[in-house]
């Protein structure tokens, strides 16, 4: 079966992508009832005993959040019990998977774990899946699509393991206290509300908390362990703006573009990621906002120390935080009343009344590949190896008034602009501008933007011209063929399938 982007998708029970907004406009929000716990005595000695008590058996679906990112120990703890008990056909649904989760590979190979739902994966597990080792299809949702899938019952979770840095015995908890404090816990909230069984795993059990993000009324069990992870592992990308001259040029041109398009104004809202180029864009935006005495309304997403600093300078009234990207952001979240948590549904669920992504004026995003229809790949490399995933990419692109992709035109001798991307993560109809070191392409459907840049000094080119410039330097690379073996699907935020993942050839 083909979807509207002419990508082949599996026939068995998947909905084809029809356009960025068609299904959302046509459908109503579906919500299964929230699952409130009736347990009173919740403390248990170990994760292991709960496998007997619940019980956790072959074929179940277990979920996890990724707020401890590459410092998370909880998924591996549960993996160890699955291995010990030799459970089979387990589905796991972590909101993201990192290199630290390498122990999963053995369980995938031995078919203890046969299915995975996630929003982002890199490292050994991603490599194993890319090589076709997962028995069933990998399902990759976006950060906004995941809570939609959970609340609608599409992703039915038997047991949610919630790593919580500080908890009381009733399961009330937060991410701001304890040795593993990682900040906001926004990705866990849908699991907490809708999973059939919920287990808080904590390493800091207290009598009482003055701030509650995880509501104990939903929690069935609390297990105290020595440590849930290494909070230093939450650091995402780099914490300083790039000094690379090419990326700095891209960042400066991006900020100039945004200014020339008239988006730097009082009340503006803004999102960008971690990583050197993203932070360099934020740095340039900061300069321009300070020069013009601009006060924005909010910055959102994963929050970095850089955005915290901008808020402290008065450049934004509020920060909306779904996860903290560094420990300075955790500290700010703890002490600053205008540093506000948002759960992943409020962040990007397309069926929320007014998700934060829809309130965004500007979002700056990256790309592994982008094609001449402005479709963006942030899921695989050009060989089809899984190296990431949407996260909030497709959610923010769909919601923001101005979506800007920043990328080097050429990386490691390969052009980033393609005729067709290997994998579509974000549809081109939601992407407005592509900024490279050799020119800026604006999506022709944004006639309004093209009109505004007419008399500026910006180097505006078409996306086809960018492709030609790249090919003049690199030559035209041969297409890399993948195998015909489907290994996964990329779900768009509305639940439809935007693209299919194939096993890498030769693996």
């Amino acid at each position: 079966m083909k979807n509207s982007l002419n990508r082949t998708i599996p026939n068995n029970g998947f909905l084809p992508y029809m356009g960025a907004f068609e299904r959302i406009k046509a459908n109503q929000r579906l919500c299964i009832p929230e699952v409130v716990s009736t347990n009173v005595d919740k403390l248990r000695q170990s994760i292991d005993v709960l496998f007997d008590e619940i019980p956790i058996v072959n074929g179940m679906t277990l979920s996890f959040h990724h707020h401890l990112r590459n410092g998370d120990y909880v998924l591996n703890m549960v993996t160890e019990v699955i291995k010990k008990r030799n459970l089979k056909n387990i589905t796991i649904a972590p909101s993201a998977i990192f290199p630290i989760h390498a122990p999963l590979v053995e369980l995938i190979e031995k078919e203890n774990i046969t299915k995975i739902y996630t929003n982002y994966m890199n490292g050994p597990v991603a490599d194993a899946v890319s090589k076709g080792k997962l028995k069933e299809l990998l399902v990759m949702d976006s950060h906004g699509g995941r809570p939609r899938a959970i609340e609608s019952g599409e992703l039915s979770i038997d047991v949610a393991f919630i790593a919580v840095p500080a908890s009381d015995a009733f399961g009330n908890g937060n991410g701001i206290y304890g040795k593993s404090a990682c900040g906001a816990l926004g990705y866990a909230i849908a699991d907490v509300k809708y999973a059939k069984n919920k287990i808080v795993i904590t390493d800091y059990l207290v009598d009482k908390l003055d701030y509650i993000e995880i509501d104990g009324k939903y929690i069935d069990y609390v297990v105290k362990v020595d440590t849930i992870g290494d909070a230093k592992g939450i650091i995402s990308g780099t914490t300083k703006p790039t000094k690379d001259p090419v990326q700095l040029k891209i960042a400066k041109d991006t900020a100039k573009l945004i200014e020339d398009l008239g988006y730097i104004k009082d009340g503006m809202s803004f999102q960008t990621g971690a990583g050197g180029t993203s932070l360099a864009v934020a740095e340039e935006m900061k300069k321009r906002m300070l020069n013009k005495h601009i006060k924005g309304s909010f910055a959102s997403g994963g929050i970095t120390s850089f955005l915290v600093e901008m808020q402290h300078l008065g450049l934004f009234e509020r920060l909306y935080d779904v996860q903290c990207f560094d420990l300075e952001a955790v500290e700010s979240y703890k002490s600053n009343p205008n540093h506000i948590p948002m759960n992943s549904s409020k962040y990007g669920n397309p069926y929320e009344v007014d998700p934060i992504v829809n309130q965004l004026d500007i979002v700056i995003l990256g790309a592994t590949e982008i094609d001449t229809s402005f479709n963006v790949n942030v899921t695989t490399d050009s060989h089809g190896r899984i190296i990431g995933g949407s996260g909030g990419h497709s959610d923010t692109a769909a919601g923001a008034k101005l979506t800007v992709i920043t990328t080097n035109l050429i990386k490691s001798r390969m052009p980033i602009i393609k005729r067709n991307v290997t994998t579509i993560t974000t549809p081109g109809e939601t992407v407005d501008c592509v900024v490279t070191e050799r020119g800026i392409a604006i999506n022709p459907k944004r006639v309004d933007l093209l009109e505004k840049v007419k008399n500026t000094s910006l180097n505006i080119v078409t996306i086809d011209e960018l492709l030609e410039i790249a090919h003049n330097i690199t030559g035209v690379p041969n297409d890399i063929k993948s195998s015909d073996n489907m290994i996964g699907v990329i779900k768009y935020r509305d639940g439809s399938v935007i693209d299919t993942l194939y096993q890498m050839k030769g693996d």
Partner: protein
Amino acid sequence: MRRSLLFIPSNSPAMLQNADIFAADAIIFDLEDAVAITEKDAARILLDQYLNKFSLNQTEVIIRINSIDSEFGFDDLNKIVSDQIDTIMLPKASKEDLYILNEYLTKIELNKLLNKKIQVIPIIELASSIINLKEIASAPRVNGLLLGAEDLSTDLEVVRTEQGIEIQYARSVVVMYAKAFKIDAIDTPYINTKDEVGLVKDAQFASSLGMNAKACIHPNQIEVVNTVFSPSLKDVDHAKKVMMAYEQAQKEGKGAFSVDGKMVDKPIIERAKLLIKKAEKWGV
């Protein structure tokens, strides 16, 4: 007319690939100090391939060759001189070297049937170059003088300082001879590539002495240098006002006239013309 001249090592494919994206007025492809002796031939071949493949459009292409009394200087010229380049930068320049270079370039131009005359920028980095500035600045093909303060300091046996007192005479005298012979006075690079504030101060000081351009050793320096050596909007507006008043005075047959209460004479008109020309060239 130049403001910024960016040094790029000729043995780095990644840097060559992006040489033209930073808005430098000129790129100096370096075959001398940036390239180890063991890589001279490889750098020369790579640069030649690059120049034949890439179009640098309006950006001036300058090649810093090895000195012509080294074993590499003439090989550099034989390989690299073509219609793809504009200018040869000659290190440790002397009047004798410039004479030899001129003769040799003439031969190459004839042999290769070039469609252009290659220009020369001597680097003033020896005390002997300073005392021979008149001959150097007036030598054939020379259209700019680059002060090389690091080597000059070594020659003078002085320590290079942030303030640059030790090179103040050299800066001034380079400006004097450059202006006397209507060629570019190009200031020495600022070597602390991480200190933008220091770069601004250094460039502004050089500009105040009369330098009209500055060499850059990192792409991140170009924006500052272009800004400092471009006319300000205020100066451009004033120059336009002077030229309008001048045209009006011409129509009315007046010899003397004033702008904003100040008398305008020929040097002010000439300066206004040059400033407007620069502003047009650089899109101020």
